[in-house]
């Protein structure tokens, strides 16, 4: 399997490949030799300690689908982050090793290479390299034991060779996280009708054009830019009280910063592929986009940390809601 320079040139054309995948993601069968940002995207964020390396992407992909990383040996990252469902699971709250529903909804994984403000719904992971340890070891998620993982990975028939190929130094457990981080960065969604329209290859309908204008008018202070998110943490008025229980898992961004002013603030998710990543909000409370828009129209709960733009809600007519949903459909890769 020789990687070729040619492969990365096919970025756009090879993406929409598998019909079972609801939207296209990189990598292709062979990760490109060099990282190239898709047109219109900013520069991808790589940790200096873990620069792009196709061998690490390949190893990361294998680890992503590896159930032996979990305590029971049956759950891989892909169990909840299922590639066929946009690297999410479509459930309100996923269930892991303990059988207990998790506190939050599984987020979709794509275009993570352009996120620099932390990961998880509250940004507890400072980078992709540090992200994996929580889900991997949490008893309610994969319940993996790092000592055990380190032991069997080094005794495995084929993993040691792959680690050696991907890293020039002796095995250490952090390499598992580095390889997974490389795989996560390689998940790219870029080829939506919206993208095609921007490139002049498709035309938006009148409803879609009206929807785009409405999104720009009412949503773009948070859902900004080509990724349709400012990557910030905002209170969008879905709650007024925030429990400190369970290590503050319901506090929002304040769990991480310890700052009461960050209570109830959650990551602004991208709107790309939004029609295919239901349910919505950090806890999956809204099943449809119509419900989400109804919340912004009529359901905003006031509070000290509420995003000021949302005070009093957003005034939208039923036609506006229709148009916005039409437009949002154009953000899903085909």
């Amino acid at each position: 399997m020789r990687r070729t320079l040619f492969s990365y040139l096919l970025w756009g054309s090879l993406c929409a490949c598998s019909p079972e995948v609801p939207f296209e993601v990189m990598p292709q069968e062979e990760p490109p030799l060099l990282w190239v940002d898709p047109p219109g995207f900013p520069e991808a964020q790589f940790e200096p300690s873990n620069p792009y390396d196709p061998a690490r992407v390949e190893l990361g992909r294998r680890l992503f689908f590896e159930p032996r990383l979990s305590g029971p040996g049956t759950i891989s990252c892909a169990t909840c982050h299922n590639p066929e469902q946009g690297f999410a699971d479509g459930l309100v709250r996923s269930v892991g090793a303990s059988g207990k529903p998790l506190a939050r909804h599984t987020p979709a994984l794509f275009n993570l290479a352009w996120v620099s403000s932390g990961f998880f719904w509250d940004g507890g992971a400072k980078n992709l390299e540090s992200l994996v340890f929580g889900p991997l070891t949490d008893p309610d998620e994969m319940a993996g034991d790092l000592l055990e993982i380190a032991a069997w990975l080094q005794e495995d028939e084929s993993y040691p060779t792959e680690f050696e190929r991907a890293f020039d130094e002796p095995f250490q457990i952090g390499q598992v996280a580095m390889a997974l981080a490389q795989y996560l960065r390689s998940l790219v969604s870029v080829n939506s009708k919206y993208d095609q329209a921007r490139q002049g290859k498709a035309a938006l309908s009148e409803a879609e054009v009206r929807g785009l204008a409405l999104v720009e008018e009412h949503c773009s202070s948070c859902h900004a830019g080509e990724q349709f998110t400012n990557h910030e943490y905002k209170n969008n008025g879905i709650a007024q009280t925030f429990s400190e229980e369970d290590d503050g898992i319901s506090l929002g961004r304040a769990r991480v910063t310890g700052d009461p002013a960050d209570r109830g603030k959650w990551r602004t998710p991208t709107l790309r592929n939004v029609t295919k990543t239901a349910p919505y909000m950090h806890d999956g409370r809204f099943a449809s986009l119509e419900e989400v828009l109804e919340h912004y129209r009529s359901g905003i709960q006031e509070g000290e940390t509420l995003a000021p733009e949302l005070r009093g809600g957003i005034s939208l007519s039923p036609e506006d809601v229709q148009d916005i949903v039409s437009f949002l459909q154009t953000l899903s890769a085909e």
Partner: protein
Amino acid sequence: MTTVPSSLLLFALTTACAEDEVDRSDAEAGSSSLEETEQELQVRLKELETIVSRLGTLIEKNERALKNAQSESEVTQASYAAALEKNEKLHEELRDAEVELASLQATLRAAEEELGDLKADKQTLLALLDSSSQEFFGKLEQLEDQVKQLELRLSEAGFPVSLRFSHRVGDEELVRGQQYSVGDASLSVKEIRYWVSGVKLLGVSGEEFALPDSYYLVEDAPEQMTHSDYTRPARKRDVVTLLQIPTGQYQGMEFSIGVDSLYNDNLSLHAGELHVLSNMANETWMWFTSYIFSKFSGSYETEAGEKVAFSWDTGSNAMYRSVSLDFPEVLNLEESGAVQVDLNVDVLELLAPFSDGLPAVIGPQKQAEMSLLADAYTRAFTLESVSAP
């Protein structure tokens, strides 16, 4: 030419005889013309006499010429002979020269052959010299390298400085699980663990020597279960040996409790003893992206008999604290040899900020308490002595 050719002379005589025979036959045939014939004969005779006289003259001339020629020839012959002789001599000289030349050529050839041999010898010698000198210089270089490396190692290894962390409860040595009286209350410590990192030695002229990758886990901890089949055995680690300190004069040292943000913000990195397998990173803290900087747990019974099982963690970048300690006197690391620095760590200092009541849990959701505890760690360390081990 001075000689008359003999063929011409013979022609003249033969012609004269033939004319005389014709005249005689005419006289026999007719008598009338006798007188005429006589006259004619007389004329012929005179002509013949003239011819003879001319011939005589010619002969005389010829003879003279011949004589001249002979004498000339003699002279010529003499000079020829001389020339021959000279030629002979020249030939002889030439032969001699040729012989000499041949011998010279032979000598030359011999010399050339000798030169060739010498050149070959020289080549061989040069090659020998070259390889042996290469070998020699190679060896020399290797030896110099070895010397350099040894010197480097010597200078790097320097003398080891051991840090000995003696955990104490006030004046008493801390023994895990043992009850200690604290005023009217009592304390029992189950576990104490913390990262000592960023160790620096402070030179007398203000320069600092920072030990690279210095992350050490100091602990006195019981057996610990993980949530698989793995059990971490009880472990007491109280001595940290610092190597590769340059010789020099030092007036003190500095270290931090916890992990600097560069490494604390990326759990995939590893350095020194730092990695996520040390049981100083659990799922609670990893959801934050931080190592556990310190763990301190045990039980505390107040004089009223109220018992608190406490479990205190610090972690996150904001809890990173440094401790600076002066040596009692300047440490000259060259003269001193190996050195042990004895540090006392009084756990009563860790309790001090919470005299109004000990919290059962200090952790990520208790920022204020965590901060008080992190500060208390810096006061817990005192330098007891610097001595030879």
